[in-house]
């Protein structure tokens, strides 16, 4: 092990982790506001990546410019899914049923993507995708740095929306207690629909960065959703800050362990940390106690 390897691992953990944090934030926002566990989040990330791919290949639109199209498109996709499937779930079994329903949605989208794009792996290309710059002995891939900046901008925008706007007040009220929020006149249904749309919209950005840094096909979504779920469990279901910290933390821990000991222990080390945290704080790092009780 040398210092370059350690610094590179730390850099990879922070840059890649921020993108996972962005994707997981959408998932935890949806859970926090709606009590919905969206198993389709992984395939929606891949759908976002394929949208960028289609725009690039067929219309020659740059990956980042394409986000101006893919983010609103994914927002609309989210609204449609919420209206068609999620909004119909009622009653005490809503959360459990949401797992089945969103899994079904995931399978539908996976099938459609396989038919449209085949199961061959693809990767998003761009003149900057393989380029990098060096600081000392550590190389920074432009795409990773851009992904980090994009995640930071979008997460900041999300925070601004939550803490500096009237709609954000409604969201936070719904996050805290849906019944009380409804009693003070907040249209919780509308807030839920928009939040689902936002939660899905961030997958466009996450998917684009993921697709530019990894080969993917529709089945890549299984790896993604398992990672995203563990991130929001560690961060605390429904906690935006927790998702961000856990997203970066998960990748950072895995990467450092991979360099210091061996890559074979990377995944396990994260789960060891997850187990320890859940033993001490069953609700996750920043989760509400009521989540555990429920």
């Amino acid at each position: 092990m040398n210092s370059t390897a350690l610094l590179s691992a730390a850099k990879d953990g922070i840059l890649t982790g921020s993108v996972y944090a962005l994707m997981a934030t959408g998932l935890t926002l949806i859970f926090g506001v709606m009590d919905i566990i969206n198993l389709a989040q992984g395939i929606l990330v891949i759908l976002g990546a394929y949208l960028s791919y289609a725009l690039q290949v067929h219309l020659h639109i740059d990956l980042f410019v394409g986000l101006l199209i893919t983010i609103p498109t994914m927002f609309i996709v989210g609204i449609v899914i919420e209206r068609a499937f999620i909004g119909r779930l009622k009653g005490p079994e809503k959360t459990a049923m949401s797992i089945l329903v969103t899994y079904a949605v995931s399978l539908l989208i996976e099938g459609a993507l396989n038919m449209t794009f085949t199961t061959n792996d693809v990767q998003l290309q761009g003149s900057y995708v393989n380029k990098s710059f060096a600081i000392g002995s550590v190389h920074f891939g432009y795409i990773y740095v851009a992904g980090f900046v994009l995640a930071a901008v979008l997460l900041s925008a999300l925070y601004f929306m939550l803490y500096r706007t009237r709609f954000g007040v409604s969201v936070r009220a719904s996050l805290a207690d849906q019944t009380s929020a409804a009693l003070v006149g907040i249209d919780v249904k509308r807030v839920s629909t928009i939040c689902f749309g936002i939660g899905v919209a961030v997958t466009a950005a996450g998917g684009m960065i993921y697709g530019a840094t990894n080969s993917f096909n529709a089945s890549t979504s299984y790896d993604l959703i398992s990672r995203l779920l563990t991130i929001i469990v560690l961060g605390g279901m429904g906690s935006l800050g927790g998702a961000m910290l856990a997203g970066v933390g998960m990748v950072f821990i895995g990467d450092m362990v991979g360099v210091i000991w061996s890559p074979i222990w990377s995944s396990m080390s994260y789960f060891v940390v997850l187990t320890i945290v859940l033993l001490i704080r069953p609700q996750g790092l920043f989760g509400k106690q009521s989540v555990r009780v429920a």
Partner: protein
Amino acid sequence: MNKKAKILRTLGVVSAAAATMVSMATTSGASSAKAPIKIGISLSLSGDFSADGLAFQQGYKLWAADINKAGGLLGHKVVLDIVSDASDPTQVVTNYQKLISNDHVALTFGPFSSLLSLPSAKAVSRYGYALVEGAGGAPSVFQAGLHNIFDVSLPVANDLVPFSKWISALPANVRPKTVAYVTSNDPFTQPQVTTIVPTLTKAGIKAVYNHVFPAEVTDFTPIADAVAAAKPQVVVLGSVDVPTVSAFMQAFEQSGFTPKVFIATGGPDQGSTFIKAVGAKNADGMMVPNAWYGGSSNPLSQKMVAEYVKAYGGTPAGVSSDVVEAYSVGEVVAQAVKATGGFDNAKIIKYLHSNVTLTSAQGPVKFNALGMNTTPTAFTFQWQGSKFVQVNPVNDKNSVKVLFPKPVWGK
């Protein structure tokens, strides 16, 4: 009865008689045709191995179309019953059980990868079926001691031996001094990589990185960065698929690191899929071991490649080795069925164990007691420009000069 009624009655009788005759003729014709024969296959059409599974499906379908064009198996039209296992070793077992007990397939062809072939062979052996496969050549598959598994391809353990011989034989002044071994913990990759470590060590090539990573890893950047930080002159990557190799290549390029030699156990042999993922310029100099390539002079191979290009487009260099591995399974089973005169799996197993030499698009096939194909020779292939060429063994007449050192990425 008036005249009009008589005519109508006569017409009715004639029509009924004609209809009866047509019906009898149809029935007679149907009874003389042989019923289609169903072959059960589980393939990874989704999940980690989906790209390979799809290529295998192409190979199987191509063979089925060819055999049906030639009159089928003993006059029976071949129907492929393909189900997806999502690259899951548990699902693959369920699939073969269903194919045999519910779908009543007469024969079973193997799935993709050693990881899935072994549990599949165990499952079908309980029903007395043979499992002829094209992508289960890991030592662990044969060490299980099953009597019903037959791998028509090259056993993988010695895949990298010609490569190790070539690099060890380089003059000392140009021979690389350092190597990184990095491999997935997969039964296909690990034996290949570990086999050549003693040879390279003996040649004075020091290991500066030697680690195994979990097969389920999707983010290879930190591992690739650690390899790059060790600055090895040779990288031996134990990979199963294209995404793994392309991720390492991308991370190396971003790190400004180009090894003098880069060989991967799987991925660069996937033809156009590999080129699409990494770009033709980056592919230059990438090496991969195998027993077959699209430019093979074997007439059976040339026929298959021509049919593939006609059916799916592309060039011979773009044909994935998965396609020929699947196609060869069909060829070998067809010869066994013909020789035994039927679809009795016990007879087929006995025949395949009888030291008989069969033919396939990959070359001759002869099984030992473990079901291992003993005839193939391992070669090393390399992308040179847009061509996928054989470079090892060096003294083979079809080998061309190795592109060494590997060009800088994208140049």
